[in-house]
């Protein structure tokens, strides 16, 4: 087999073009990028959440003090963003499973925008509830 010659494009700029800021790409690449980033953020949040819950076991008073921050407008806004990430990641995941099992990928752009719209609408509703509770 001939060994390939030449230099493969790479580096952070290359990754940014494909995995962070897709340029001149269709909606589905944007869907993939958003899915990946929402997943990474949610994975980080998993450990943050476990850390916060540790306070209940170790020092419940500290947790109740933390609640003051969690109930602030900034804290509630964070919860709203979290719900958006969860909704988008989950619905887009379902979209991918549907495309695998049922095909019809010619509809993928419409499906992506439907996922975005539903996520935003449900997040908006959740935001109203969240801010009304506190």
């Amino acid at each position: 087999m001939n060994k390939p010659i030449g230099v493969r494009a790479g580096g952070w700029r290359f990754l940014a073009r494909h995995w962070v800021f897709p340029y001149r790409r269709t909606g589905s690449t944007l869907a993939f990028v958003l899915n990946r980033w929402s997943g990474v953020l949610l994975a980080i949040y998993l450990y943050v959440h476990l850390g916060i819950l540790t306070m209940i076991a170790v020092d419940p008073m500290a947790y109740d003090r933390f609640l003051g921050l969690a109930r602030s407008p900034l804290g509630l806004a964070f919860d709203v963003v979290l719900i958006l990430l969860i909704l988008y990641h989950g619905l887009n995941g379902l979209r991918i499973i549907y495309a695998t099992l049922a095909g019809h990928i010619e509809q993928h752009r419409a499906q992506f925008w439907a996922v975005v719209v539903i996520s935003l609408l449900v997040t908006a509703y959740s935001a109203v509830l969240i801010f009304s509770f506190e």
Partner: protein
Amino acid sequence: MQQLQDKTQSRPSFAWLGQAVSGVLLIAILLLHIYFQHFQARGLLNAGEIVAHVASPVIFGLEILFVIVVTYHALLGIRAIIFDLSLTEATRRKVTIILTILGVLTAAYGFILAILIRSQLVG
């Protein structure tokens, strides 16, 4: 064509299918978690309310299942991202082992945390 003699294996399919199945499960579990922990309670619970909440065997079971499934899904996803880079087979194996250990530790930690929180009700 040596490249066509790739080992025929279905491990990558297990990862994808595992991700899909855990994802679907997570949607159901998350809906229940968010509803019971936040919306039914109409806001954020304080420490005492959380302890009382987790005392319910159903809620306790749900939270344990949640931490196991979400850890599995999250770390499989991280593995998929790492595997997209040009890694050797040996490096991939190491990454899988490290993430598996991390996953087991995380799920175990979540389980122990739930037990400790629950035990506060008795204490």
